């Protein structure tokens, strides 16, 4: 419900867009650069749009978990790719303080789920149907989890969605937290290279999805009831027996942003980037070794029709 309401609000906003004041155009706008490539692409596209509108932009590296203090203090002015699945509690604190404001969805259709590299389908026939996991849990067993199978879950500080699913579906599989994104990737890489079994909690868009040919397990599509009512879903005794709640990817800014750079605020609020646009750029950077600046510049030149209207609406 919430997402639909927000979508309508956004369209309404887009309709009412008017040319806004440039504000302090000679002071640089600082955009946060977090630790992953997709975010670099998102941020650089937005930054180039701001530059096209006549702003100065500075890219500042910032840890994803620690950036909100900086955002609240105005040391960084906007961060453009926050995942609801692993946003830190501090974000909620800062929003309720009023020092950080959310400025709309990015429009990136994220998907999270229980995943496996393609070769695992040979080891556990019946995949991608989730029921197959009941019988091949043993295939995924390792020394730490024996006699149960093993699911490599998100690092503990991102929450435990994988573990919740395993309990929800009552599968004989134990979730083991990975500790870091690097650890998740190393697991995927080692499994692909060795053709060994692996079950992992993963998400897209991510460059590793195509690099390691990662597939999602089909889980029943859930709704609110699935998370509150045990009776819902294949397992009558537990909640969480459905697919992941779709994670929202959104943008946030420093509270003083709208006042200082009104036009830039409009551009960033209306800025959207799709998976179809972002994922190929990620591939060009991570797989083909291009630099973020070059890849983004090429995309901007080819797709002017998709971003120029947003800039023009705010400035003309």
């Amino acid at each position, binding site marked *: 419900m919430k997402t639909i309401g927000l979508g309508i609000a956004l369209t309404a906003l887009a309709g009412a867009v008017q040319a806004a004041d440039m504000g302090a155009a000679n002071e640089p706008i600082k955009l946060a650069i977090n630790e992953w490539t997709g975010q670099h692409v998102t941020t650089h596209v937005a930054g180039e749009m701001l530059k096209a509108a006549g702003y100065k932009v500075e890219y500042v590296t*910032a840890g994803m978990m620690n*950036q909100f203090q900086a955002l609240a203090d105005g040391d960084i002015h906007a961060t453009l790719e926050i995942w609801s699945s692993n946003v830190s509690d501090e974000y909620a604190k800062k929003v309720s303080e009023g020092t950080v404001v959310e400025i709309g969805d990015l429009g990136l259709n994220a998907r999270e789920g229980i995943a496996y590299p393609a070769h695992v389908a040979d080891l556990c026939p019946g995949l991608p149907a989730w029921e197959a996991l009941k019988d091949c849990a043993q295939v995924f067993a390792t020394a730490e989890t024996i006699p149960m199978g093993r699911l490599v879950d998100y690092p503990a500080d991102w929450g435990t969605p994988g573990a919740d699913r395993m309990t929800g579906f009552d599968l004989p599989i134990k979730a083991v937290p990975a500790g870091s994104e690097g650890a998740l990737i*190393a*697991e995927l890489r080692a499994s692909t290279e060795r053709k060994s079994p692996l079950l992992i909690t993963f998400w897209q868009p991510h460059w590793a999805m195509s690099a390691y040919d990662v597939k999602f397990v089909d889980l029943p599509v859930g709704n609110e009831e699935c998370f509150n009512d045990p009776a819902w879903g294949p397992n009558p005794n537990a909640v969480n027996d459905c697919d992941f709640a779709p994670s929202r990817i959104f943008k946030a800014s420093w509270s003083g942003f709208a006042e200082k750079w009104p036009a830039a605020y409009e551009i960033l609020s209306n800025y959207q980037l799709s998976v179809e646009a972002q994922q190929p750029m990620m591939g060009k950077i991570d797989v083909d070794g291009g630099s973020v600046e070059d890849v983004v510049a090429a995309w901007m030149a080819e797709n002017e029709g998709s971003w120029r209207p947003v800039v023009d609406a705010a400035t003309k």
Partner: protein
Amino acid sequence: MTAVADVAAPHATRLTLGAKAALITALVGALCLALEPVVPWLGAWPKTWVLPMTDWVGAALAWLLGWIKPVARLFSDIMVYPMGWANTALNATPWPMVIGLVTALGWYLGGLSMAALGFFGLGLVLASGYWHEGMNTLALVAVSVPVALVVGGGIGILANEVPRVKGAVQAVLDIMQTVPTFAYLTPLLLLFGFGPVVGLIASAIYAAPPMARNVMLGLERVEAEIKEAAIMSGGSRLQQLFQVEIPSASRQIMVGFNQCLMAALSMVIIAAVIGGFNDIGWEVLLTMRKAQFGPSLLAGMVIVIFAVVIDRMSAVLATERKRYDLRVVWAVLAFAVVFTVLFWSSLPGASEVAMLDGVANSLDRGLTRFTQSNGMALEALKNNTLYYVLLPLRIGLDQAVLPFTWGFMWTPAMSALVFGLGGALGLLLAWRGNVTGGFVVLIAFGMIETGVTNLPWPFVLTGAAALGYVAGGRRLAILVVVLLCTILLSGLWDRALLSLYLCGASVFACAVVGGAIGVASAIWAPVWRIVRPICDMLQTIPLFVFLIPVLMLFQIGEFSAFLAICAYAIVPMIRYTRHGLVDTPEEMMEAAISSGATDWQILRDVRAPYAAPTILLGLNQTILYAFSMLVIAALIGTTGLGQSIYLALGQADVGLGISAGAAMAILALIADRLVQGFAEERRKALGL
């Protein structure tokens, strides 16, 4: 626990005290085991007895931070300027000039070999393509080291001038070095705001203690005659200090300077976790996130190169002054200037020189091939270690032995058999006159049967107190118990035991393997020639870099964490063992040789006893290193205190972060004090 217990074994000579302590410990353990089914709170500390200490810590800190915040913000506003200057100076200077300067400095300090080190070192940095990131890192070090020097020097002088505070200062220095940096990142961030200043402060906090300790040591060792001469010539106290005592302690202080630089460099990576600065640590983190071993090793090597160059050059400062011809310095500089002027327009930009990318990629491919061809063997190695060593140690034989792992089910009869065996062995030892050893064996068997994480808390407290009493008397015993009780009350006990188990297993492995390598290095010089550069690299490379190959080979989990900790913590054990064995005084060696002892006899009966205090110090360092690696190892999915620290970092939970960090520091401190107590006793026994 095991490692400490093993240290106790050689002290069988002190029959009465050691035996009594061991007896009490064994009795408490037996009592707990017997009563556990009836009195469940003996086994696990009840949740209801836990005080909300983490919340209190959080609230108290929030209040305190609010007070200091304006001052801290002012400080970080000021620090932005020197950071900016250092950054601009290093980045704006053309790279041939920087290389020329370092080469010239190398010549001036240490002649041709130093000049070559500087030239080729920085040349490698250039070739890696990380020149700008490297310069940013150097800028951070260039600002944080002076801060650390001033703070450390100030603390050292204060402790020297006001002897009453010495004990407190020692404790503060210990805390600064043992609380993991990650634990106080969040409060630092609140205090100083976002940006490289936080990293700067964090590395200064970590780098100041070695400076302070060396200043204290240096001033302490100034000879009484020199001090008296200063007093007699009528200098004021300040004049005595700055014109006589500090200059005469300068060599020791230079050692502190060197250690301070190295510590700051090893911590700069922490700055990257926060960001705000495009430094080499950020590169390491990015490549680590993609699990690219080659590139991350390459980025890590840049820090190693800086460390080696800075270490060797600043080490020269601490030795006798012999300076080289200044004319060569000018010649090198002139050449650099001419070269820059002539070729600048045709030279590639510093970041475009990425000649080593091919090497990095082929390293990565090599790792892939290795995992592919050795998958089965690696799997077997991991499983066997887990089934037969780590799991029993963690949860005890009675839970670890299952049909899936050992092929049969554990029965109470087998438990009885294990205890019987332990008892018999213990009796045998006691009968041969080693009563303490007998009890220790019995306790060790009991611990393997129950597992470290299932040990009843009264047993742990008694055991630690007993060890403390034997090692350092009543005061140490009380300290140990009080500190452990704070962990119990804060509700972090379970996690602390998990951390203790992982560290204990790693330290034990490091002591055995590292000790053996150390002995081999001491006996055969060629071995040391191979081992030494590896040790250098393991100590200075950012710890994160270890994680990728370990993960690729053994996947996430305890075994990987165990290996990663060992890779780092084994170094001091090797170094100190070798150092202790090589350093045997000539007279003793000659006496042994002239009395016709074989090489083996000399090693066993002369060198080893003489080296024992040094080796114990190495063990002490190994323990501290293991604890500091524990936080990093949490990135590969361990569940102890390290994970709590990351959880706290993610949720900006100041209370939990600081409490978990403090718990870790407490464990490290206790281990440190116990081992130092035993080392002190050995030294006394040797009359040193």
